[in-house]
């Protein structure tokens, strides 16, 4: 069944992953809240791709190797990871995952077919502070991610098992390790964005309360073959809040690479 959990071992590190569909491989790197459930957007994408959604090392139930200390380590890990595929991959990253994807791409694009950054962390515009999702309480942290509060209501109403709560806590620790300081960015990343030489799509919710939508243009300016898509009535997670728009934009870019 699409989205069932499997485990993948790369260079001695075992991570969990969800996968589904068939076609060219699409690697989706999740955000700070960890491995999502099999989302509607994955169903839409799996009509065109083999979608693989790994859980980052250190997050949830994946291995936490001691060398995993910063975002650069995560990017290098995923370079190892995509070498295991026979074909270059379409790389998609959400927020923290988008940051890791960009760090990977500035290092080496040879195994990438395209890049999609969904409201990525990773760069900083002075005077344009992100929201402080470490000081937000549990409810604020959910509400501030979505423009449509009925989505937040649904998420907040979902019961959580003790086991899932423990995994969420592990994920929160791992995200803190990577993003607390400097807060959600790498001071060096922006100056190397010109190294990204594959088609790149940048998608941003117009009502993002974590990273203001102004960041989208800055990413677009930095990456040569890029296109920016601003999604109206949408918060920080277009893949969840606007799955149709998000999938359509990714598929459109895919068509352009063929």
């Amino acid at each position, binding site marked *: 069944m699409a989205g069932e959990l499997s485990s993948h071992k790369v260079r001695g590190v075992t991570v969990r992953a969800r996968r589904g569909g068939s076609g060219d491989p699409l690697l989706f790197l999740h955000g700070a809240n960890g491995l999502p459930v099999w989302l509607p957007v994955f169903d839409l994408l799996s009509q065109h791709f083999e979608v693989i959604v790994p859980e980052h090392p250190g997050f949830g139930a994946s291995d936490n190797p001691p060398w995993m200390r910063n975002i650069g380590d995560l990017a290098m890990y995923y370079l190892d990871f995509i070498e295991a595929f026979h074909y270059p991959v379409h790389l998609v990253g959400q927020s923290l995952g988008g940051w890791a994807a960009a760090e990977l791409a500035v290092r080496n694009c040879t195994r990438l077919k395209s890049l999609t950054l969904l409201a990525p962390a990773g760069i900083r515009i002075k005077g344009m502070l992100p929201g402080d999702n470490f*000081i937000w309480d549990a409810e604020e942290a959910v509400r501030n991610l979505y423009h449509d509060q009925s989505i937040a209501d649904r998420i907040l109403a979902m019961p959580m098992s003790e086991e899932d709560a423990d995994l969420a806590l*592990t994920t929160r620790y791992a995200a803190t*390790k990577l993003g607390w300081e400097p*807060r959600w960015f790498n001071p060096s990343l922006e100056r190397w964005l010109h190294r990204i030489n594959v088609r790149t799509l940048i998608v941003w919710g117009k009502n993002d309360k974590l990273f203001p939508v102004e960041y989208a243009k800055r990413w677009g300016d930095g990456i040569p073959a890029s296109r920016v898509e601003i999604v109206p009535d949408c918060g920080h997670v277009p893949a969840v809040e606007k799955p149709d728009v998000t999938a359509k934009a990714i598929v459109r870019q895919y068509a352009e690479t063929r």
Partner: protein
Amino acid sequence: MQFTFFHLMPYRPLDMTERHKHRAAWVVLPNSLYDPKKGADEYQSYIDQLVYAEKLGFDVIAVNEHHQTAYGLMPAPNLIAANLIARTSTVKIAIVGRALPLVNNPVNIAEEFAMLDNLSRGRIITGFVRGIGNEYHATGINPYWSHERFQEAHDLIVQAWTRPGPFAFEGEHFNNRYVNLWPRPYQTPHPPIWIPSMGSSETIEWAADPARKYPFLVTFSGRDLVARYLNLYREQAKQFGYECSPNQLGWASPVYVADTDARAREEARAGMESLFNDYLAVPFQMLLPPGYTSLSSMKNTMRIRKQLGAQKRHSLEELMESGTVVVGSPKTVRDELSALRDKTGASNLVTMLQFGVLPDDLAKRNMEMFASEVMPHLKD
């Protein structure tokens, strides 16, 4: 017993209505609520109280470090310690403590303590802490590395005090090509190191290690927790193969003494309740940022928290009931303190005799009564 007079130096003129419009009296509380003229008066009162404690016969006077908060006005406690050195003659001066993970060069802490130790001719007691979780919001230091940075900074500081310099320190977080303190500490091998803690098994095991045997102080905890943690330390020492001495064990508590129980309650109420509800209370996300505690203790904390439900204000009676604070007539206070001493074998009592909004006149009377009616009965 050994008696310490400890001060947090709270900002008492705080507008509490304004305070509760914000998440906490920490980090996000606008500093426009701080009036420098009133603040200067606060410093003067508090330093006078610390100096007076020497005259009253306390063994140790103590200060500590907190950042960006009305809870305590000492982001740089060593500045206060330097002032106290000049105004006292024999009393020990404890800085309990400096928050080691929060600095980017721990050698600075080693240097400052060494200076104070020389200036005071060996009257300094140091304390090493990690800071409250709020401090990681205030400084930007990543709480995920809090434990690692603490261990490494500790090693660096103790080596700086004891190893002939210059030497190189090679760590994960701290790398110093030259470590070579001028001045070296006055005391040999180095000033005492106390470990104040809310109590965690990792900290207890580390402090009790025979290589360290650091005096351990349980802070802001009810009497059952104090007893539990101190007995854990004692057990840990036994497992290491030695019997821990009474001066390795201590606890810190706000105390108020008046001639009768009723009067003590009446006078202490506003100060005690403000300390816990207005100054100290902070949301969970600030108090325990991810990584500040180990993952396993955080998982337990989350479960307990889920059972407890929403936080509410603590009344003086609740705080007394749990033994988090000690309030009453001289006899009540003597009985309460000696009971916990007898139960734990601890000999190191750190008192907070000014707390929260407690005004100067009451703080002074409290100090005097404690010194004349309680201390002599509990001295060894």
